[in-house]
């Protein structure tokens, strides 16, 4: 996943059987070709759903988030300077849209318009996860609701997606130093959760 999310300034070849390159699809989609938009959607729907789920592990939220993210991406395709970087760009849109949704949801909870629901860790983390991975993931997801939105997203991108700090900064639209601060705060709480 890391390589799927990472941004490369160089055009990347397609994977075997993947069909047209992202750049070709983006250019066709910009020209109004419906089939190209659909091809991009189908190519990256699972990636977007997975990323959205790991940040916002509630199915209903995930579908809305992914739809909103693709809509935003398609409507702003003209702003994508490197068409081959569509997937990294889409990922950053998913991440930022997730951040907005989390902030809005927390506000609704604070205003009493929405009930806070804890994350069902047992449901989120696969039973096939090796024990050490499962421990870490359970600790991460047990902690997320207690973190700020930025801490939460940074922690998921670091601990679950295994992104490096510059990549997280790019995905979140923050500076690396801000990401470090958010991660330090989240990691400290995570360490306490894993090793009480």
């Amino acid at each position, binding site marked *: 996943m890391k390589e799927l999310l990472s941004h490369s300034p160089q055009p990347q070849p397609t994977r075997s059987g993947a069909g047209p390159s992202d750049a070709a699809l983006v250019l066709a989609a910009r020209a109004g070709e419906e089939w190209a938009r659909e091809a991009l959607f189908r190519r990256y*729907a699972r990636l977007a759903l997975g990323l959205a789920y790991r940040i916002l592990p509630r199915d209903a939220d995930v579908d809305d988030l992914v739809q909103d993210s693709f809509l935003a991406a398609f409507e702003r395709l003209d702003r994508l300077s490197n068409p081959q970087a569509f997937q990294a760009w889409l990922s950053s849109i998913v991440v930022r849209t997730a951040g907005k949704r989390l902030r809005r949801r927390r506000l609704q909870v604070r205003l009493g318009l929405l009930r806070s629901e804890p994350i069902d860790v047992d449901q989120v983390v696969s039973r096939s996860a090796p024990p050490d991975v499962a421990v870490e993931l359970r600790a991460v997801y047990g902690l997320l609701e207690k973190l700020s939105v930025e801490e939460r997203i940074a922690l998921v991108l670091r601990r679950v997606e295994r992104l490096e700090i510059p990549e997280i900064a790019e995905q979140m639209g923050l500076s690396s130093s801000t990401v470090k601060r958010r991660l330090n705060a989240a990691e400290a709480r995570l360490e306490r959760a894993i090793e009480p």
Partner: protein
Amino acid sequence: MSTPPNRYVQPEVGEARVDRLWQNVSQRLEPRPSRVWRWVMLGTALSAAAAGGVFWLKLTSSMGPSSGSAERAVLAEAKLETKSDELSVTLGDGSSVKLASQSEVQVQSGQASSISLQLSRGALWCDVTHREERKFRVVAGDVEVRVVGTQFSVKSSAGPSPRVEVSVTRGVVEVVSARRPGIVARVAAGQSWIQDGESAAPKPEPAPEVAPQSSESGKPDAPLPSAQPVLPSGRELFEKAGESRRAGDAAGAAHAYEELLRLHPGDGRASLAAFELGRLRMDRLGDLSGAISALERAVAMNIGPSFREDALARLVSVYASQGNLAACRRARDRYSSSYPAGVHAAAVATRCGSH
């Protein structure tokens, strides 16, 4: 390299969920108009009589002192008639119709799903916004012009067997004449279709000079000879293939790609169609020989670099599956010489057995 933890936090994603999401996304996407109507010129003399209808026309006039500028409704089955001036009408769906002087047209149907105009005499220019769900046709005498989404004109003399001339400026129309039952002529941009008065057969003729106009779609179908049986365009076939593929009909998709390659070998989508055909035959239809043929064709058609790399790698794989080791090695060498550090280099190197 250890497995990233995200592998263990995955939602359940089936095809049905992806399909549903795409339906939602596509419905919410701003539709892009395929055609833009640009010209408005006209004149006067509207004698619109009405007999109960449901659709509204915005009438705009830009020529002649007698032309009115007010918007007014014209009911379905209205008759539009011009004398010394012209008349321009913008329909509710954005399409424009201009009636030349000394012309008469009857609106036979103005429903959202079907617009039908009967030209009794004179000339009619149409700039039709493409809408999949709406049929647009013009009838002149015993000739019917079916609009695919384009700009065109129809001229008709008066009388029961009038001389009818159809000229297309942009896009494609289909023309059907009662004098030639069963024949559908496809008239593309820059072409004209003429049927003389009485019983003379239609003959092609160069289209009149028309000032170039930009088009948002910018892609009229390639010109076809006049008065030939209607054929699906490259775009239509490509879209049909995509629909069949999404419906799980691999054979139907392959057939559409085959038709595209047969009917429109020079189409810009042809190389991609060949590649996709190769993939379908290889992955879904178990037709290895057919896959080789399609993939080799895609490579020969100067498909884009990334497609070419995939096509060459697939050729190695399909030759290996066939047990044709000599061809496999040749394909492997071809891939390796073109893409020594390609994404499939490692996989390709292990195919075809030893040297």
